């Protein structure tokens, strides 16, 4: 049988003692209390020892008892004065006794027979007796009990009862009774047998040091058993922000699906790229003061090269060569120069199309965008948009639906999708997609459309361009287990520390 060092030491002692209290074992083995208790419990589970628990009565010293142990019992102090003076008045006794102690003192001294009481000049006078004289050097049971209590603070009731009744201690308020569990350990027959066969005691170590490994000393030691169930300190590892990890995952997915990533140098955009290049008329409600941020400083940016600007202007005013009748208003370059924090990632698609693209080609951006909203559980003031386009000579509406459906399957894990007509100023036809998510039900998951020719032709693109955007926030909130959208940009360190791993 495998026994730990502590178990062996304990068992050896138990073989000598057969039966011992827990405290006794601690003393005899020289181990600490926790180690002995653990050893006993293990020995018991192996059938080598038995632990009995029984209640025992004890007497504990009171505060008053402690005080008397120091300055002496009142009758002792009175006796000392009596011996010095032969006879004393109550007034004299005030020197050594408190008011409380004074009242019962005559009774006690008379009961002990240490003094006689009489009236002298109408004053109560106490006179020392022979017995009193002797008593000075004699210990009464109560004196012994007080001494024992003062020394051990807690004594088995039995021990006191051999001297005097507990009642007396209680009346004198120097001791009080209490109940205490006593643990007694007994060796079993099997324990005796194993102990008699001889146990090899090895040194016990708690830490395996490099020295022990190097020297081979580990062969001659016992390893202290750890309480492997004990709770441990909470650690907070360095982690990526969970929403960041979610966005990274979407980025990887899109790259796998053949999309090229678009980026842009500033979070600030001209209205030209945010609206005009997207064929959004300058009096469009989305361009209203209340729906669009404007900058106080810097106020205006630059327009791109003149040819492009002229085409966009012509497209807005009369349709240019796009086959459209245009919006029929006077386009103002100054408005297009106004700066704003970018309001949608589609602005990046316009920029990319203007710069030139591979045909066929697939592009995406994960872009921080801004909207004049109030920050609350369901609205963010800035957020990330996942947006892009697919460009190709032979693309049709059917492909647009195909691309959207693939996103729903790949990213939201949806099994079913449905399509609804939708409206964007820069696409026609336009579609909204709802995806069926096992836990969320039908979720509006994305939108798409074929960029209007009024938009693509001025940017120099003559083939169909399918624009798409996917709504990731609800999915992100679901994946991250949150119902307050602000937690996507959490300022709550506790939540970040405890957030489950995402990948």
């Amino acid at each position, binding site marked *: 049988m495998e026994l730990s060092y502590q178990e062996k030491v304990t068992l050896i002692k138990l073989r000598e003692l057969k039966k011992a209290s827990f405290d006794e074992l601690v003393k005899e083995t020289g181990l600490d209390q926790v180690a002995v208790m653990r050893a006993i419990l293990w020995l018991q589970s192996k059938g080598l020892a038995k632990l009995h628990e029984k209640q025992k009565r004890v007497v504990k010293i009171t505060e008053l008892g402690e005080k008397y142990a120091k300055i002496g019992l009142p009758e002792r102090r009175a006796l000392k004065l009596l011996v010095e003076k032969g006879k004393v008045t109550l007034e004299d006794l005030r020197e050594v006794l408190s008011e409380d102690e004074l009242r019962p003192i005559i009774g006690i001294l008379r009961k002990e027979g240490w003094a006689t009481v009489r009236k002298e000049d109408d004053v109560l006078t106490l006179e020392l007796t022979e017995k009193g004289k002797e008593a000075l050097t004699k210990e009464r049971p109560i004196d012994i009990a007080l001494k024992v209590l003062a020394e051990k603070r807690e004594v088995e009731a039995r021990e006191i009862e051999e001297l005097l009744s507990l009642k007396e201690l209680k009346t004198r308020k120097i001791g009080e009774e209490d109940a205490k569990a006593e643990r007694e350990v007994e060796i079993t027959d099997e324990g005796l047998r194993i102990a008699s066969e001889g146990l090899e005691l090895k040194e016990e170590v708690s830490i395996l040091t490099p020295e022990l490994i190097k020297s081979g000393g580990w062969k001659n030691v016992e390893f202290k058993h750890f309480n492997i169930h004990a709770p441990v300190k909470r650690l907070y590892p*360095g982690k990526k922000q969970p929403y960041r990890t979610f966005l990274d995952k979407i980025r990887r997915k899109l790259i796998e699906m053949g999309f090229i990533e678009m980026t842009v140098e500033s979070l*600030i955009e001209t209205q030209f790229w945010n609206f005009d290049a997207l064929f959004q008329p300058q009096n469009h409600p989305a361009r209203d003061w209340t729906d669009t941020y404007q900058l106080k400083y810097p106020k205006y940016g630059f327009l791109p090269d003149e040819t492009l600007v002229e085409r966009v202007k012509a497209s807005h005013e009369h349709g240019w060569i796009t086959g459209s*009748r245009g919006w029929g208003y006077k386009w103002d370059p100054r408005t297009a120069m106004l700066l704003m924090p970018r309001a949608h990632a589609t602005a990046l698609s316009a920029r990319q199309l203007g710069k030139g693209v591979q045909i*066929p080609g697939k592009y995406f951006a994960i872009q921080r965008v801004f909207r004049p909203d109030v*920050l609350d559980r369901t609205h963010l*003031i800035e957020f990330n948009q996942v947006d892009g386009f697919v460009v190709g000579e032979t693309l049709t*509406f059917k492909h647009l639906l195909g691309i959207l459906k693939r996103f729903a399957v790949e990213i939201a894990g949806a099994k079913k999708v449905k399509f*609804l007509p939708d409206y964007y100023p820069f696409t026609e036809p336009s579609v909204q997609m709802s995806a069926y998510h096992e836990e969320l039900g039908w979720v509006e998951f994305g939108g798409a459309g074929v960029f209007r020719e009024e938009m693509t032709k001025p940017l120099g693109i003559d083939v169909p361009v399918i624009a798409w955007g996917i709504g990731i926030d609800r999915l992100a909130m679901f994946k991250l287990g949150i119902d307050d959208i602000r937690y996507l940009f959490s300022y709550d360190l506790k939540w970040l520390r405890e957030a489950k791993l995402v990948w």
Partner: protein
Amino acid sequence: MPKFDVAKHDLERLVGKEFTVDEWEDLFLYAKCELDDIWEHEGKIYFKADAKDTNRPDLWSAEGIARQVRWALGMLRGLPRYSIEESNVMVYVDENLKDIRPYGVYAIVEDLELDEEALKQIIQLQEKVALTLGRKRKEVAIGTFDFDKLSPPFYYKAVEPQKIKFIPLNCEREMSADEILEEHEKGKEYGHLIKGRPYYPLLVDSEGNVLSMPPVINSETHGKVTEETKSIFIDITGWNLETIMLALNVIVTALAERGGKIRTVRVIYKDFELKTPDLTPKEFEVDLNYIKRLAGVELTDKDIKDLLERMMYEVDFVDRRVKLRYPAFRNDIMHPRDVLEDVLIAYGYNNIEPEEPELAVQGKGDDFVDFENAIRDLMVGFGLQEVMTFNLTNREAQFDKMNIPEEDIVEIENPISQKWSALRRWLLPSLMEFLSQNTHEEYPQRIFEVGKATLIDESRETKTISESKLVVAIAHPKVTFTEAKEILDSVLRHLGAEYTIREIEYGSFIPGRAGEIIVEGKKVGIIGEIHPQVLENWGVEMPVAAFEIFLRPFYKGSFL
């Protein structure tokens, strides 16, 4: 975008057929509406419709949806026909309204039988058209009146504000124009559209009774429409004749869907005369092949004709081209694409099998984004928690609370809240804010962010550049400059950069524990132990050491 309520029973009596709720959900799609919500009230079922197309006011009512459904289901085909006759009613328009609210167009719809639900729809449609198409009544304001209670002809006049006095809608007493603008709910909402002009627009009848003060409020006493109303007089004012004529067409045809008969009104301007409404169909021409090529579903000429007729077009083939005539309540057809969408909606988006295009393309992430991710991985390796904070902030957070003088910063002219009125030019204040919100949380706190700082750069297209930066902040009782430098040193060694630190005086940091990080002679960042004044400003009672560096200078291009 416009959302409006319709009653199922009202829709069904307009269509002349009953459907289940699920069927309605699909039927709504023909009208470019989404069924947003369903509820029951006194045993009747109501729907909330979310109209997707901001350019199709004809679809923003029960009448509009019901009409589209009748056509989509083939109950009727081609152009809708309305009974329209001339009336002798005239409206005279005052030329002094030229710079105030120059145009008005009018119509009468007779033989109406209105109940509560019909009345609700008329009011709701007016509101939605004035709000969205009318840009909150700026471009379109609509008034409807009980024609039988009025005495034509009517005058759309420019009147000096102090001469105006009438009882406005929902009021009991007569009010002056200024009282209305200042005290009446609608006056407060729309008064700014006329306030300060020498004249206010006023519509009066031949007896001088005020019918309305467009675009603000109607009269309570003259011509209020009720369930007893049989004939409605419609008044629409605005700045652009084309827009208000469209609005008028939308309203009169909606009323005609309830059995009303349309009567035209003569509108007399100083130099010309109009007869409104004008319901002459509009014309457009498309190439059939264009439709077929982009649709992606097999469609014959006959199919296309059938689908377009179900979208209320009249279709004539002329060679490979199609001559189309479409209803006067629409003006959204600018390009053949708009016709294509109608073909597809009539076909039903969900009847088209999605197909992924096969394109020989390869995906690629941006290399700099990969670089930023590599930096994030490295920082996580130091045991730092990544945070993501907002770019929007304010001057106080960026400068005052950081104990440094103000500098140029990208500022928003019309912020929703002062708290979000600027774009950050450095990231450390964002991390200080983060720490300030977590003072009750166990220390040490070690955080970082890789994010953008937006700086002014006059030479660039947007006058700005958003630079990628790394910022680190460490807070615990024993933190000093040294701990920040240890991490910085390690990061820069991993980036293969030799650096020096030049001691600086900087208000955010404790003097003698602050430095600029110099790489190849250029300043790339800043490091220091946060000044106790700054900690106090943020309410952080814990020492903090931090650094912030630009990432672009360390980027060496793609690894592969």
